[in-house]
């Protein structure tokens, strides 16, 4: 106490020490229910301030967002010999002097002296800085008022946070609540809870946080455009997408034409362009059911298995760090690919992965345990990939946006606590088995053993002979599981629509609601009822008119990025683009250890990126993350330059055994050449204008380097190469639209 009093001497004169004590009489102030919320609202215990990992700021540490009030109390009141509080002269307490800026503070002024927060802290110190007064109730829940609403662009609403305590009391805690919009382009929210809708129509939500509790305000911002008709509903997807568009008043674009559909669905399911022959046959086919037939053909094909295996191997970290990884990586990739080809139900695939035992060659999903070795990493990857839950935060503290605690984290890790390993003959590869024993792990925070539990759900007593991972797999695949099917349908929805119903696709939480919750629920139900049939899910998505809408916006829906009122064009993925160029030019790309003709979408691991500037430039992932965001889909100057000048592209255009060379060798008429090229690249014939321009260019004369006129065939060859190059560089080719 003496020390704390002495501190006052070092506080500059004219600062807090010089001021009289606040006149307000000390009242019953709770550190837990009153002080911590003030600190949270002021940002003192934010991750970038005193809750920063590794000691906070300048020797003063608080728990993140006040999730550990007891620890915070100790640090504020007891730590550093109590120097942060000065009970003899409360306004001179370092806590207040720093917060109001009387003493230099790296975080600036956090509380004005006339603020309610300042007064609360002052009253608390004046009251002797109690931890909790007698009968201090616990916070039970919070709610936001109103919970939902419909806002016109520019309209405002002020949110109120009501807290309910264990003694039944309710309190308005708006002033100390934190507000955050999930899409600042659609709506902003001020510190006092005032929400302002902006010009983009759709669904937006505001997360409200108070003392580790969260609530959500959901708003729809309708466009209100006239919407008399929508395309007919092919299935429940259409019903729910179009109902949402009606609700928001966003007119959808019309369904796309056949050529666009075939190209789109071939790229989205098979990761490839339709062949020239497929395109011609499809365009000539008068069967009204031909789109569904095309979808079925693609889903039955090995192309589907190759393409989706490519998607999964990256997020399952099938990464080659050493040349000796090749067998494991090929086997793991092949297991995914073969499972997809065989139509193995999704829950069965994940079960085989989670509870894999044996050696990689005999049971390839064991390879996942070669790449993801630590139980913490295993549960974080499992949660994010298969449950859409990001648990990483909960390893060290209560999840700031979610209900997940450290107990939830470690009880999930306990499922992986009995994994036995033995070295095999292959260096770096272990044999995996269930090591008999009671599954449990230690909560590093409390030091207490934790038994397996699945994100709050009890899974029963697991006997020592039972592999707890099987129990986890049981829980995942149970129909009541609120995460498993939802996470998958959302991930696949994003695959086809470029945006998840929940976005990001692997961050499903109460505070990040879906843009169309009814649709997400319906897809989830359909997926479960289908027996976790991935093909059935893809079929119901791609057969919908919502998927088949044109990418061309109408006068209203250009700004819509959320409600699927049109198809959102996307650049072809690196592998798909490389394959597409090979398809158009009639060439192949050679990949080490793989047969000539292997498509880039069928590559088993990331090692091929090293030898392929093309794949690197266009963002093929290195399989280091469970997040699909590791794949770079944005454009870059390097991509443009590569398409314009790269030697590999040039070699494909000039290949002696390529399509262009054969066209010349076969002496095809220019009209035929142009028609074939357009079908190969765009799955459609050229328009009259396009044909005229192309023919004019193809038949132009050329001069050789020495100025002499080039022979007709040589000129045609070079003109044809230019034409193909130009088609490849069009947005129509580079994008799925």
């Amino acid at each position, binding site marked *: 106490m003496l020390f704390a009093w002495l501190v006052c001497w070092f506080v500059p004169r004219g600062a807090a020490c010089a001021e009289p004590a606040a006149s307000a009489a000390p009242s019953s102030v709770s550190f837990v229910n009153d002080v911590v919320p003030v600190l949270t609202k002021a940002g003192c215990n934010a991750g970038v301030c005193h809750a920063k990992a590794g000691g906070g700021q300048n020797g003063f540490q608080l728990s993140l967002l006040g999730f550990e009030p007891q620890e915070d109390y100790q640090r504020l009141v007891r730590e550093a010999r109590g120097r942060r509080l000065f009970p003899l002269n409360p306004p001179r307490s370092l806590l207040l002097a720093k917060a109001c800026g009387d003493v230099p503070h790296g975080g600036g002024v956090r509380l004005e002296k006339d603020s309610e927060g300042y007064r609360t802290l002052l009253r608390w110190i004046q009251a002797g800085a109690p931890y909790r007064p007698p009968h201090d109730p616990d916070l039970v829940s919070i709610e936001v008022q109103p919970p939902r609403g419909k806002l016109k662009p520019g309209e405002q609403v002020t949110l109120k946070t009501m807290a309910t305590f264990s003694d039944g009391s309710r309190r308005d805690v708006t002033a100390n609540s934190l507000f955050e919009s999930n899409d600042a382009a659609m709506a902003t929210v001020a510190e006092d809870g005032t929400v302002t809708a902006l010009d983009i129509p759709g669904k937006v939500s505001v997360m409200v946080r108070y003392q580790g509790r969260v609530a959500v305000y959901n708003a729809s911002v309708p466009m209100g455009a006239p919407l008399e008709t929508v395309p007919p509903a092919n299935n429940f997807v259409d019903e729910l997408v179009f109902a949402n568009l009606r609700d928001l008043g966003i007119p959808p674009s019309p369904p796309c034409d056949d050529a666009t559909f075939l190209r789109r669905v071939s790229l989205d399911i098979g990761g490839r362009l339709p062949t020239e022959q497929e395109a011609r046959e499809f365009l000539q086919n008068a069967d009204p059911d031909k789109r569904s037939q095309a979808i079925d053909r693609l889903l039955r094909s090995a192309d589907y298995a190759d393409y989706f295996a490519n998607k999964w191997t990256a997020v399952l970290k099938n990464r080659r760090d050493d040349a000796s990884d090749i067998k494991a990586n090929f086997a793991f990739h092949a297991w995914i690919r073969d499972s997809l*080809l065989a139509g193995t139900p999704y829950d069965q695939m994940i079960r085989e992965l989670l509870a894999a035992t044996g050696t990689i060659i005999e049971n*390839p999903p064991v390879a996942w345990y070669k790449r993801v070795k630590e139980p913490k990493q295993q549960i974080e990857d499992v949660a994010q990939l298969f449950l859409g839950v990001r648990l990483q935060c909960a390893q060290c503290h209560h999840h700031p946006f979610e209900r997940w605690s450290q107990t939830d984290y470690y009880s999930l890790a306990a499922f992986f606590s009995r994994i036995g390993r033995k070295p095999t003959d292959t260096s770096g590869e272990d044999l995996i088995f269930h090591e008999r024993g009671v599954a449990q792990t230690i909560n590093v925070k409390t030091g207490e053993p934790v038994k397996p539990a699945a994100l709050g759900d009890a899974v029963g007593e697991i006997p020592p002979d039972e592999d707890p991972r099987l129990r986890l797999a049981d829980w995942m695949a149970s129909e009541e599981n609120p995460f498993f099917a939802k996470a998958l349908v959302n991930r696949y929805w994003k695959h086809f629509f470029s945006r998840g119903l929940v976005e990001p696709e692997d961050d499903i939480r109460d505070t990040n609601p879906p843009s169309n919750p009814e649709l997400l629920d319906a897809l989830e139900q359909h997926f479960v009822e289908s027996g976790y049939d991935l093909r059935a899910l893809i079929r119901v998505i791609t057969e919908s008119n919502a998927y088949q809408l044109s990418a061309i916006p109408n006068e209203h829906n250009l700004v819509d990025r959320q409600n699927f009122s049109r198809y959102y064009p996307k650049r072809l993925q690196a592998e798909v683009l490389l394959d597409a160029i090979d398809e158009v030019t009639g060439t192949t790309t050679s990949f080490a250890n793989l047969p000539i003709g292997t498509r880039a979408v069928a590559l088993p691991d990331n090692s091929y990126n090293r030898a392929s500037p093309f794949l690197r430039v266009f963002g093929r992932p290195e399989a280091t993350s469970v997040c699909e965001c590791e794949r770079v889909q944005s454009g870059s100057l390097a991509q443009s330059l590569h398409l314009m000048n790269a030697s590999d592209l040039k070699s494909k255009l000039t290949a002696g055994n390529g399509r262009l060379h054969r066209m010349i060798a076969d002496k095809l008429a220019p009209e035929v050449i142009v028609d074939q090229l357009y079908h190969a690249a765009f799955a459609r014939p050229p328009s009259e204008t396009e044909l005229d321009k192309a023919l004019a260019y193809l038949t132009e004369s050329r001069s050789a380097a020495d100025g002499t006129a080039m022979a007709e065939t040589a000129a045609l060859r070079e003109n044809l190469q230019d034409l193909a190059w130009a088609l490849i560089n069009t947005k129509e080719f580079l994008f799925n639209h």
Partner: protein
Amino acid sequence: MFQRLFKSRCVASAVGCLVTLLGGATAAGQSVGLPAPRLLTTMPMGGQAGTTVEVTITGQSLDTAEALLFSHPEITAKQKRQDNGERVANQFVIQISEDCQPGVYDARVMTGMGLSTARAFSVSKHPEVTQSEACTTVQTAMPIAVGSIVNGTLVDRSINHYAIEASKGQRILIDCASKGIDSKMNPVVAVADASGSDLIVERRGGVIDFTIPASGRYLIKVHDLTFKGGPYYFYRLAVMPWDGQGTPPRMPSTHHVASFSWPPPGLAAGAAKPEAEPNDSLAESQPIELPCDIEGRFFPAADVDSFEFTAQKGETWWVEVASERLGHPTDPVAIVQQIRDDGTLVDVAELTDIPSPVKRSSNGYSYDGPPYNAGSSDINGKVEIPEDGKYRIRLSDLFGGTRTDPTNRYRLIVRQAAPDFSLVGWALHMGLRNGDRNALSKPMALRRGAVMPLEVVVVRRDGFDGEIELTMENLPEGVTATGLKIAAGATRGIVLVAADPNAPRGLTFASLSGRATIDGEQVVRDCRLASMKWPVPNAKAEIPDPRLVDQIPVSVNEVETAGLSIDVAEDKVWEVQQGQTLRLPLTLTRRSEFSGTSMSLKTFGAGFERNAAFDFSLADDQTQAVIDLAKLKPAPGDYTIAFYGGAVAKYRSGDAKPKDIVDIYVSQPIQIRVVPAKVNTP
């Protein structure tokens, strides 16, 4: 410090250190293991019983190949000759008798350097074809008939295609033998439509059971997991009609090393009774009476089989489970539990793997033991009954949590102690250079004057702990074998096979056995022989892959003699008192040039293996071995020992440039009699 470090590493890699000691020999350009005849491929790899097959062979040191021999008497071969009677090199005409049972047999080639290593040769009852043209595209797919077997070889970075015509509803089985016939290939087999688009794929060595969805042309695609190819990536592809009845038949296969310890002597071919499902839980336990012999399956995934029995306090039962040794990718575990009156369970025993009798090599680059696993993931353990009452055996497969394979069988035997043993041996090497496992695949083709050591290990059964004498019989003229016994309680012994310097060319199929006294009865058990399928010069790039071979051929090389022979100066029993020092004069006969001036010798022989290594001059004709019995403390008795070490020979074949080759050299066996120390009376 440097010397200490150096010395410790020498223990792990005697030859590697020797290379350093000898100074001039660098790693580059030096190889391990003197040339030996190795049969590496036969094309085709098998044939139909009752037919004649023309076979082309390839291998190492087969220049003087003159006969192709098989481990089954119903398979015979003649050298192929042109019309003018001239021999066609490396080609043979093989006659497979109608009576020859389907199976995999060993083929070996007799050469001037002796009999080669073995290569699997299969016999079937079905028509066979040999792929002769490349078929790596859909367009070049090779047509085959359902009901036939194709002998094929992969091309690097390629997929072989075979075309069949089949009718809707027709059910076919597709099986591909590769690892089981010595191939390096990890097989991938797919059924594809006529365009080549895959319909179903099998990559784990299983069989494809495929029902034709629509009449027409289908492709069967075959490739290696990592698309490797070349002559060593061969296979036999069987496409058979299938009625769906019973367990799908598989192509026959060679046996992996662990299977030598199965079955126990005297076991009936079939189990006494099958498991009776449902028996997955305690409540559903299948009642059994001990002793018992039950056959069951680890099926479906995560299957648990529970067997309940009563037993009395003080009883001892031995539980043996075979599953991995039957060729299945399983890891059985048996928990024996007492069932208390209140239904609670108390663990009595947890029975898991059969440990390897000797430390086997780790997966590191350095050589730290033989890469043969004579242990198994199967079970052979003891249960002592603590109280009268009810018990149960909970049997499950540690690898079976998610795998549903009805062919994963097991056999569970619970018996009273039947002490016995099983033996397996292989050509021995001490330390090898990092990564180089080439010498492990050598045949027992002895150079005259050479001594070849075999390492023999034992899996002891039901508490048998006694001494085992090793004997080898039916040897060629001029060849002797000396068994260095497996001591009581020990798991390893040595057999030295020595060819006299003047031994004539010869070949016999020897028998190797262990003799022990069990419960007062003399018991003799045959020893199986294991060998590497392939010479592996780089263990990091290729994991040494051994198997059991059918026979124990011993042959004498007529072309070359051993570069070095080490003998004790006098052929007698060397008598020495306990606690004294024995000095053995050794003579060296050098017939080759060697790098360096000395080699380090260590000692074989129970009780003497801790004898300190000593340097042995390669320049002098004589040296002396010193054995300090005060340190070794052997009990009085007769012993057989030998000295061994590595040396780098400047090997010359014909007019070729000499090549540095490191190999193991072993002395002739030496008889020692340790007599009790004289008691000094005051």
